[in-house]
């Protein structure tokens, strides 16, 4: 009996070892295929593009009111309102022009890691350590009781790390510490599609610009960025070039590429049609993780917030840093460019949000 179990144990280990070596060999093959099309570097393609001049970007507004670390923010389509969420459970909707708080709700959990504005501007979604994504309609009643109208939509088996409405208020896409992403119907709370493939916590996601079709990209603690078909639930492409967790992913405005920010202190650009990484944004002096990335309207600039409290502005084509922005007094945890590209907002562990232009 003992020797049979030992033999079976050995067979089990052999299978694991042979699976590992098959995976390694396939990864090698994939790299070979990708390398065949790697005929130039992106900065070479951009050699004759005019270099960028000096940038003067300053904090134009500071939003104060959170009692603890700001973890996430999102813009309303009206280019003016912002929703933000924090470690202490508070979710606040701001008018960024006036810095007034328009709505506030306290979640029943701490670490509200994800929040999103609905396309209509009439609701927000948020979640975190409660493992759920909940939707709150926004009203303009004098004594609004947001908590009373709360609707639980998504249920994961671990923390919610990211959420986004699709192109309507009807569906929400979520990412979770349970290693999956999922698409939900807001009205019924029904799970429409789930996305399996990450080998560890999923930390971020971004939907492709609507013209490009039904795909989204996710990034995780498995160092992978994965591009998904929303209808079939299949992963179309995956990229594993980062050396650590991917904290943020964002589509290039045309939808043909996406950027990532990682704990390995680099940001990278992945070209979807060439199916490879085509640029790395890094410097020896930058040793802290990048938590959040977003593009300017044209895609020429990449703004990235870091755990060393700074924001670096990168020339996407040439690969060089064009500016470094100081102001936050703790980690920058979240960053989004406004819908019309006139400004960007950063949120930080220093409890504030800043609008830069």
């Amino acid at each position, binding site marked *: 009996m003992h020797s049979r179990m030992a033999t079976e144990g050995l067979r089990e280990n052999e299978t694991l070892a042979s699976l590992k070596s098959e995976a390694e060999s396939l990864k090698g093959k994939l790299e070979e295929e990708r390398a065949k*099309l790697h005929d130039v570097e992106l900065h070479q393609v951009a050699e004759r593009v005019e270099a960028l001049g000096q940038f003067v970007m300053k904090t134009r507004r500071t939003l104060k009111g959170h009692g603890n670390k700001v973890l996430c923010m999102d813009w309303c389509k009206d280019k003016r309102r912002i929703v933000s969420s924090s470690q202490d459970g508070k979710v606040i909707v701001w008018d*960024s022009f006036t810095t007034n708080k328009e709505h506030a709700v306290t979640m029943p959990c701490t670490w509200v890691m994800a929040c999103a504005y609905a396309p209509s501007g009439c609701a927000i979604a948020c979640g975190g350590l409660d493992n759920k994504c909940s939707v709150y309609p926004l009203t303009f009643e004098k004594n609004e009781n947001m908590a009373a109208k709360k609707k639980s939509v998504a249920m994961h088996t671990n923390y919610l790390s990211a959420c986004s409405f699709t192109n309507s208020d009807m569906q929400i896409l979520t990412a979770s510490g349970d290693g999956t992403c999922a698409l939900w119907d807001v009205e019924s709370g029904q799970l429409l599609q789930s996305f399996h493939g990450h080998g560890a916590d999923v930390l971020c996601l971004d939907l492709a610009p609507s013209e490009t079709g039904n795909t989204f990209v996710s990034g995780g603690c498995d160092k992978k960025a994965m591009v998904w078909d929303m209808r079939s639930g299949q992963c179309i492409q995956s990229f594993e070039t980062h050396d650590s967790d991917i904290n943020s992913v964002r589509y290039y405005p045309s939808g043909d590429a996406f950027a990532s920010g990682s704990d390995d202190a680099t940001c990278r650009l992945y070209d979807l049609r060439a199916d490879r990484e085509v640029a790395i944004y890094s410097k020896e002096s930058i040793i802290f993780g990048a938590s959040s990335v977003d593009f300017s309207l044209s895609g020429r600039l990449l703004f990235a917030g870091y755990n060393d409290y700074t924001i670096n502005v990168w020339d996407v084509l040439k690969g060089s840093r064009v500016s470094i922005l100081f102001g936050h007094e703790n980690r920058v945890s979240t960053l989004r460019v406004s819908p019309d590209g006139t400004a960007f907002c950063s949120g930080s562990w220093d409890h504030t949000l800043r609008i830069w232009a």
Partner: protein
Amino acid sequence: MAQDMTEKELLKMELDQLKKEVKNERQMVSKTGKELKEYIESMAGEDPLLKGVPEDKNPFKEKGGCIIS
């Protein structure tokens, strides 16, 4: 869910995915990179953070400016 899967199940999932991806169609970086660059060039004129916006036109630059909402 990744958190409920054994090492073997995770590897099998990864293998299946890799087998599919090896067959994906790809284009040359010289072509796709050029298209990324051309997109930027076509949009650069409209990019407020890139080219700058006069103080009186950007609502964030002038606090208390006139805003029609």
